[in-house]
Every structure is written in C-alpha cells, then in structure tokens.
C-alpha cells in the first residue's frame, strides 16, 4: 500500500510529532507494517519553478519551434519548445539553466538556429508524473500558481510516498484513514482529523430519476447503497488529485472515476461509478450466482460461476461480480451526466473465494477479502458525493438509496492480567487500557485483573484476548522483554530414528569418499521413460503436479537416481574431471492405492572421472568398490546384506545385484546401463539405491568370545564353471565341512583369496582359491585331526562335482 505523506496530513496532525518519514517508517516496521521503501517524489529536482509565458512566437528559422519569453517573477527567460499546446498567458513549469530534473538531468543553454534557449519548459512526464497529462505537450498549470513558486511546493509534486507492506489481517490499513488511525495508536500524542470533503452533506432530496428497489437476497452482501449525481461534467480531475493518484500508483482516468479511486485510497471503501442510463433496468439485485452461470467481466474474460459467487444484477442481467470486478456494459463515458455511485459491503469469505478461484486480484477484491469496515459504506458514499460535486460540478443533494442485511458487529473481548503477564512478562492494566484506547479499542468494563474491551468496526481482526495482547505487545515493542529459557526440561528429548539413521549414513559415506548432495524432489515428467521403467514398475507412475512451474519440475521423484545423474552431468559440464562420488538421502514418493508413501532412500553414484590417469595406476572404481560401501552401510546397522544377481531396466545386464536383507530386497547396486552411459557420454558409472526403512532400527550386535585354542590354516583350490557363483561355492565348502563331520572342530573362517582364469584352466572355467581356518573351542588340534578333516572336505567337494586342484 502506497501512503502519501501529504495526504496523511488530512487525517492526522503529524507536525506536532516532529517526525521524519524515516522515523515513522521505523515505528511502523517494528509494530507490524513493514515499510519497504520511501520515495521522495521530487527526486533530485532543483530550481524547477512555475513561470508565466509572457509572449510566444514561432521560430523564424524552423516553424516547428516556438520561442517563449517566460516571466519567472525574477526576470524574463528565453526558452524554446517543440510543444504546441501552450499559449501566451499560460502558466508552466520551467527548469532554467542549471536546474535539475527529478531524474538528475541538469539543464543548460542551447542554440536553436541562432536563438539561445535557456533550460526547458516541462511536460508532466519530465516531472516524473506518469499518466497525469499528455507526455508530448507541456503541463499547463491552473491559475493559482504564481511565477517563481517552486514546483515541489505545488500540487503535492514534492510528496513523500511510503510503500507499506500490509499483512493480510489488517485490511483496515489499506487506506490513508486506516493508516492515520494506526499512527494515532502508535503515537498517543497525535490527534486525528478529517478533510473538508468528509464533512456531513445535506442529502435529503428525492431522486430526480425513477428508481425501483434494491434487493439483497444474498446475505453475503451486508449493505448496498446508491448515490445519485446529476448534471455532472466529465473532464480531467484537478491537477493535485491527478498528481496524488499518480503517486499512489493509480492512473487518472476522468473526474468521476478518479473520485471513486481517490475515496478508496483515502478511506478504504471500494466504490463504483456508472452512468445511470447504461443500467439495463432501474433496479438492483445482489444474488448468489447459479452453478454454471457465465458472465463477461470488464477484462473481457468469460467467467464460469458457482453458487459461492455473488452477482450484482439489474433487470436480470449481471452487471458486476460483486466485490470483485464490474461487467462490460456499465461505465462512465465522456457524455455521461447522470452518475450513480455504488458503495457496498460484502462478506470477505465470499469475495475471497471468488477472487481466489478466478484469480482476480482487483483493488476491490483485495480489500473486500481483507475486510472493509461495513460502517464505511455510508460515509464513503457521502464523501464521494462531496467530491463529485467539487470535481464534476454535479448536484449530489439526493438522498441515497440503501438496502441492508445483517451486519456483524464487533464483540467485546476480555483482557486478563494473568494472560497479559504470562505472555508479555508485563501486567500494567491501566497502561494496557491506554494503549488499546489509542488504537480505538474502548474499555467497556474496568477491573484490576480483568477488563472488557470493544474493538472498533474497522478492526474485525480483534476477536480474542491474544489479539489484544498483540496490540499491546507491538505498541511496546518486543526488544525490551527479558530473555529466559523454559523451566523444567522434558525427560527424554529424542533426535529420532530418522535423524540418527541419516546422520549415520552421511558420516559413513562421507568418510568413504562420497559428497553429500540435495536435489529437487520433482523431476521431468518423462523420467520413467528415460530410465526405461516398465509400466508396471511402481516407480513408473509418479505423482505429478497439477500446476508445475516447468516441465523439468513436474513429477515427484520415485527414485533418487535421476537427481544424482543430473548432478554428475552438471559437474562434468562445469569442467570437473576428477572422480564423482555423490550420495543423496531423501524421500521418494510412491503411489499406494489412492494414497502414497514417502520412504526414505539413500542412493549413491560413483564415476571414475573424465580423466582416470594417476601416478599409482588408473583409478579403478568398479562394482566391487561400491559393494564395499554398501556392506559398510548395512553391516554397521547390524544386518547382513546378501548380493544376488538382479535386474533393473536402467542398469548393466551383467553387472546388477539385488541387495537382500533378511531375505527381502532393499535395493540394488549396479553399473549403469551402457546405453544410458553413452547418452551421458561417460563410461563406467556405478550406482546404488537403498530403501532404508527396514534397516532404520539399528540391530544390536551379538558378541561371542574368541576361542583360546590356536587355529589351523589350510587352502583349497577349486576349478568351477564360470556360472558357479562364489556365494554358492562357499556354501558348498561350508556344507562339505559339515559332511566331513567333526563335532569338535569348527570352520572358523573362509576367505576367497584368488580367482584365476587363463592358461591351464579350460575355457568356461575359473580357479577359485580359498583360505580356511579350522579351530576347536575345547582343545588344540593335532596335525592329523586337521589333515583328516581337510581331506574329508576335499572329497566332499569332489562329490559335489568340483575339480580340486
């Protein structure tokens, strides 16, 4: 909301406060209405003055120029202009040689075909006043200006505008009147006052025109009033009013429309003026729209309505979407003489619904949705009538027509000493009452520990005790209040399983060389296709936004992988040639019936880098180094991960493992599908993704004491077909130890130490060598005992079809 320092003075005596705009801005900001900017409208303007065109002649060398002799009250100055809208005797603004325009331009003297011109005569645009006047002509001043008067002292040209951010609860501050009341509350020594045009008006004549009834079948219209103005002459508004409107961000249109806008900016009441003769019928009905009803709004859009919207109709025809926007037909045109001013009061809920649903944020809707004081509809109509008389020369002495529904009046609110002192650590009830009175909240009932207050109709936001406390709090400021911590500590503050797990995962992976990343939860809509996910995969049907910002951010991720791949791509694109090891923890969003779940995943990506050379041999991340990372993650939680050959549509067909914990799949580890690597222009990308839900709870490890008897070590070397997996062979070895049977001796350790294929080994086979350790819990083993058992194991392995080497 833009607030004019000059116009504020119409409503409050600020002078005695000796305030600068900056000081006021600070007080407003700390009490809840942040001032986002202060504009000095005159800017850098210097020595721009009013001057009278004493004489005017056409330049003899070039007829498109006129030579003016200007009377500045302190001499005559020659000034040449290309404008044509002036005549001798007119008053204009003149910036002489050395004068500075608001934008900072300094003027000099210039030779126009042998005639020296000093400075320039100004258009409204050159004064920084947009839309106030024709930018191609000079701004011709009213006759009240005197030669030599400084521009910044005339017509509010030197006004100061505060840009105040009004919070949604304070609809009452969307006007100068409201802001004055707020300032009155904040500065108890100030006094409110009212401008001339708000003085009561004698309006008792019957209408000169026939007019039927105003009916309000919809209770969402609290009040509807019409004022009549006859004999109006449509023209420009007075210059000061136009300057005011321009400063306040509103384009001057004509005097009748400007009146409605001006009154809205001053008092907060949205108004509408229209030509009585454009009304379809001399009758007004405010009713709920029918579901599916349509209307064409002023902006030329066809709007489909519901029964929550309110329509203003005349003769059955919709003329306005109540409180939101007018229709196309009614309006003021240059020939209008009979004007009807509409001033109404609407339910904020209803207007809020309509304006939000249709996305119309008109000045009226913005205010009505934030609540307009219902008491204003009457006084604003009268004020508008007074201005209609002053600016348009209209007769406004007619009695307004009105209809009303029930208007909600404010309810008394109790303030207790107990709550006040609890909240603010301060409990002076007398001072509290004074503060509240300053904001127009009157005390109804006194008392030491409890008082009752009545908020004014302009403050519907005050309904509960906490609201009163806030008024007191923001008046006093919060910075002096003592600081302390809440009393007794709760017994067991718990950072929670999810944070603990997340801390463990990040510490583990960062120590293992991964860098933590955080990527967007939304992905391009086509990410399932990019990953070649089959339609029946739960990851292939992401939740998708109804109103995304861009196609790239449309679908909620069902896997963390695309984010990591994009991260790698960005790093490479930014010139990173080193290894990429990144991980992310976060939620994925999986449909489940009509609803969804948000499991916590962790995913990692390892890429050797664009330049794998190194003095200690090429970098050699592969499936097995990633496997080590995953084992570290899972075993430290007390679980035993099992890797089995797996399949994902986006991974290498021969280098993919499902990861099982307690027999259930929790994720995968794999090399990226070479086709996708090729799309990304990289070679050798290894990835994993785990659903951490099932291992979130850390399992307590079980410890068993080591045997105090020595172990005996034997190797066994086996030739096995390539498709025989290490896990199977190890299982066979363990089984063979059981078969060779000796209750006293356990297989204490089993470790693969060599895999060999090539010379000496037939095609399709490989040699696998394991180190085994035998141990007893009850005695030291003899060589014979160990040899007997180990031979038995070799025999058992042969029986299973292995060739022992």
């Amino acid at each position: 909301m833009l607030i004019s320092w000059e116009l504020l003075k119409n409503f409050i005596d600020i002078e005695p406060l000796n305030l600068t705009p900056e000081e006021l801005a600070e007080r407003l900001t700390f009490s809840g209405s942040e001032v986002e900017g202060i504009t000095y409208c005159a800017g850098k303007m210097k020595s721009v003055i009013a001057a009278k065109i004493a004489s005017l002649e056409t330049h003899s060398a070039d007829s498109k120029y006129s030579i003016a002799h200007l009377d500045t009250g302190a001499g005559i100055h020659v000034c040449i202009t290309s404008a044509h809208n002036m005549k001798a005797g007119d008053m204009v603004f003149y910036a002489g040689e050395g004068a500075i325009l608001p934008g900072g331009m300094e003027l000099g003297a210039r030779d126009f075909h042998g005639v020296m011109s000093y400075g320039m005569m100004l258009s409204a645009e050159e004064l920084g006043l947009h839309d106030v006047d024709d930018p191609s002509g000079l701004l011709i001043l009213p006759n009240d200006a005197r030669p030599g008067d400084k521009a910044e002292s005339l017509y509010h040209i030197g006004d100061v505008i505060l840009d105040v951010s009004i919070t949604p609860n304070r609809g009452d501050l969307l006007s100068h009147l409201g802001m004055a009341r707020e300032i009155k509350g904040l500065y108890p020594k100030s006094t409110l006052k009212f401008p001339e045009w708000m003085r009561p008006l004698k309006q008792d004549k019957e209408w000169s025109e026939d007019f039927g009834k105003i009916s309000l079948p919809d209770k969402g219209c609290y009040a509807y009033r019409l004022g009549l103005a006859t004999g109006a002459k449509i023209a420009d508004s007075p210059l000061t009013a136009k300057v005011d409107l321009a400063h306040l961000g509103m384009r001057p249109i004509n005097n009748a429309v400007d009146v409605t806008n001006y009154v809205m900016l001053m008092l907060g009441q949205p108004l509408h003026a229209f030509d009585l003769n454009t009304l379809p019928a001399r009758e007004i009905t405010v009713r709920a729209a029918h579901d599916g009803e349509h209307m064409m709004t002023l902006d030329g859009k066809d709007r489909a309505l519901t029964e929550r919207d309110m329509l203003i109709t005349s003769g059955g025809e919709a003329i306005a979407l109540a409180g939101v926007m007018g229709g196309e037909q009614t309006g003021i045109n240059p020939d209008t003489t009979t004007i009807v001013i509409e001033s109404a009061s609407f339910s904020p809920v209803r207007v809020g619904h309509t304006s939000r649903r249709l996305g119309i944020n008109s000045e009226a809707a913005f205010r009505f949705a934030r609540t307009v004081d219902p008491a204003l509809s009457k006084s604003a109509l009268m004020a508008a009538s007074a201005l209609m008389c002053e600016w348009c020369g209209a007769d406004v002495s007619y009695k307004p027509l009105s209809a009303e529904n029930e208007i909600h009046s404010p309810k008394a609110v109790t303030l207790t000493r107990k709550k006040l002192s609890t909240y603010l650590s301060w409990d002076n009830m007398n001072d509290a009452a004074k503060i509240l009175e300053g904001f127009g909240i009157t005390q109804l009932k006194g008392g030491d520990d409890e008082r009752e207050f009545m908020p004014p109709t302009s403050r519907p936001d005050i309904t509960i005790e906490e609201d009163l406390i806030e008024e007191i709090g923001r008046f006093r400021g919060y910075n002096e209040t003592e600081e302390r911590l809440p009393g007794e500590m709760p017994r067991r503050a718990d950072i929670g399983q999810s944070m603990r797990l997340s801390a463990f995962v990040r510490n583990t992976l960062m120590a293992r060389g991964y860098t933590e990343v955080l990527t967007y939860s939304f992905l391009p809509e086509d990410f399932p296709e990019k990953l070649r996910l089959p339609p029946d995969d739960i990851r292939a049907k992401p939740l998708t936004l109804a109103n995304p910002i861009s196609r790239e951010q449309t679908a909620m991720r069902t896997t963390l992988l695309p984010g990591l791949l994009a991260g790698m791509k960005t790093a490479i694109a930014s010139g990173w040639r080193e290894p990429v090891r990144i991980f992310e923890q976060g939620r994925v969003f999986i449909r489940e019936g009509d609803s969804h779940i948000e499991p916590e995943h962790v995913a990692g990506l390892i890429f050797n880098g664009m330049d794998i050379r190194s003095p200690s041999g090429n970098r050699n991340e592969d499936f097995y180094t990633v496997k080590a990372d995953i084992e570290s993650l899972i075993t430290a939680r007390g679980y035993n991960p099992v890797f089995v050959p797996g399949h994902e549509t986006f991974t290498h067909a021969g280098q993919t493992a499902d990861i099982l914990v307690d027999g259930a799949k929790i994720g995968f580890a794999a090399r990226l599908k070479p086709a996708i690597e090729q799309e990304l222009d990289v070679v050798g990308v290894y990835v994993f993704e785990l659903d951490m839900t099932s291992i979130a709870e850390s399992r307590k490890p079980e410890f068993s004491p080591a045997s105090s008897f020595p172990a005996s070590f034997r190797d066994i070397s086996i030739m096995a077909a390539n498709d025989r997996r290490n896990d199977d062979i190890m299982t066979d070895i363990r089984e063979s130890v059981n078969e060779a049977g000796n209750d006293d001796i356990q297989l204490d350790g089993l470790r693969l130490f060599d895999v060999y294929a090539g010379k000496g080994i037939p095609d399709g086979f490989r040699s696998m060598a394991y180190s085994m350790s035998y141990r007893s819990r009850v005695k030291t083993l003899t060589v014979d005992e160990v040899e007997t058992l180990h031979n038995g194991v070799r025999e058992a392995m042969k029986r299973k079809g292995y060739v022992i080497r």
Partner: protein
Amino acid sequence: MPEDMNINAVRDSFTESLAGASTLQELDEIRVKFTGKKGTLTQLLRSLGKLPPEKRKEIGQSLNTLRDEIENELDLAGRRIRDSENEKQEISERIDVTLPQKGRISGAFHPVLQTMHELADIMQGLGYSVASGPEVEEDYYNFECLNVPPWHPARDMQDTFYFPDGKLLRTHTSPVQIRSMLQYGAPLRIVCPGKVYRRDNDTTHSPMFTQMEGLLVDKNVSFSMMKGTMSEMLNAFFGKSLRYRFRASYFPFTEPSMELDMECVECSGHDAHCRVCHGTGWLEVAGMGMVHPNVIRAGKIDPDEYNGFAFGIGLDRMAMLKYGIGDLRLFFDGNISYFMSGFGGAEKC
C-alpha cells in the same frame, strides 16, 4: 710369561681385524678366526691343561674375559653394520611423500544438511525431539488447521503446488505442529526440519527449500521463553553471542506474531557496503509467535490450560550465512565441484 704375551697378542690381533671389518661376512670370518673350533683363542684355551695348576686358574680367567670381550665386540659391531646396511637400503627406497594419495579421500557435507543436523542437535540439547510429517500434505494440515481457511488472503503469502487430487506440497513445516500435537499431546517440545515447496523461482527463491519448525506447548509459556530459546539456538549455531531484535508481524497460526532479525554475522553492522546485510546491520532469519488458540485446539489440546510458541527458520538461509554462500540455487543442482570447493580442493588444484 709366554701365555700372557699370547693373550695380549690375540687381543691386539682381534682389535686390528675388527677395525678392518665392514661387512657381516668379514665379521663372521673374524669370529671363526678367533673363537671358531680352530680359532686362536680356542687353541689357547685348549692349551690350558698343559700349564702348571697354580698358573691355570689365573690364565684361564684372563682367557675367558678375553672371550667375553671378543663376543661382545663382535655383537656390537654386527649390530652397527646391520644398522648401517639397513640405512643404506632405506635410503635407496626413499619415496616422494608429496605424490598424491592412493584411493579415496573423504567427501564433503552439504551445507544445508549440515545445518539441519547441527540445529537438530542443538535443539535436542534444549529438550526438543525431532518430529516429521509428509511432504505431500493435505490442505487440512497445511492450511485449515493453521487458521487459514480456503478463502483466506493469507494464502496469497504462500504460492502452492497442488496435485490433481487436491493434495499439495507442504508450503512450510508448520503442518507438523498439528500432527505432533495430535500424536503426542501436551506438554510438547519438537522441531521439524525438512523440505518445503513454493511456486516461486527466481534468484532469491527456489521452488524447493528447507525449514525447521519449532514448537513448544506447555503451561504459562511466555514470549520471554521464545526469545531466550531463539538466541540460545542461534548463538550455539553461529558459535558467538549475537544481538537480536523482534518486529511485530502476522502469521495466521500465531498470535502475537513476530519476525526475528539477527545481527549481521558478516559485519555486525560495521560495513555500510556489506554484501550480506546490504549495510542494514541486520538479517531477517525467522518468523515466530505464540501459538494461536485455534491451532492448539486443532491439535486437540485445551488452549485454556496450555499455550505455546512456534517458530520457523530457513535452513538454507542459515547455511548461506554460516558458510558465506551467495546463491541459493547452487544448493540443489548436485554439482560436486561446488561443494568440494569448500574443502581445500584436495583433488583439485
């Protein structure tokens, strides 16, 4: 006494030989020459029997002493030579310790997540547990329970992502207030760090960002307590005692509501051209207030018995301030080169 002379001759001869020895092999040869089976000393010892008994004892003692001496010296010399040979070997095996490491070095944390964990830890120390809620949230929890009905203009404050079924991406972590009150009742102290989403994308806004919600519900909770809690939390996070100021503000779910400004961590208000605070000396860091009775009620707690305070703080902002990061959007593109740059660039020049 020819024996005495012999003993001295042997000693001299040994000393001379030892002085000339520089390898372990030469030492061995000396050992054989003097104490071997046919060694000079051994010969002398053997000849003891030929001496008269009165001489035997004295000479024998001298010979034994000499033998001990020789063995001792040989051991010492042996150790000396081995040490020097090892040393030569070690010098020949010298490496360039400035060559790069083999294998991986540790990775780097994400500033926002680091901030999230640090703040949660600090708040745990103040008695707060971590609570969580869904990111794809219902309108009811995100808005209605928080005193923001569908028509309310406060909805304009938060541009929202919706799903076709009417669900939305939570615009703040505040829905967790309601969920926690419903789940745990009062008294209650929770924080909820997490991702939030708003339909906003420019240089200072990202459509996804992070927040931490804090909620305390108890009896007779005062603004003083909230003030103390905020400064305790932020001082701990930034590791120094900062100045704070509160501005009255408005949030539908708190009453009264305030915003918190913190002393500029960069310049403390001493730099008129500070790139962080733009010379104001203050930084907006959090919104907060006393929980609105309607919200307490929506959490099925009696507002006549309990009240509380709640705050929401931007974790991205905290991270930017703590780590001096200028651009919010760098946080979310997963680019390792950016994050590793904060760690001395161990693998980068």
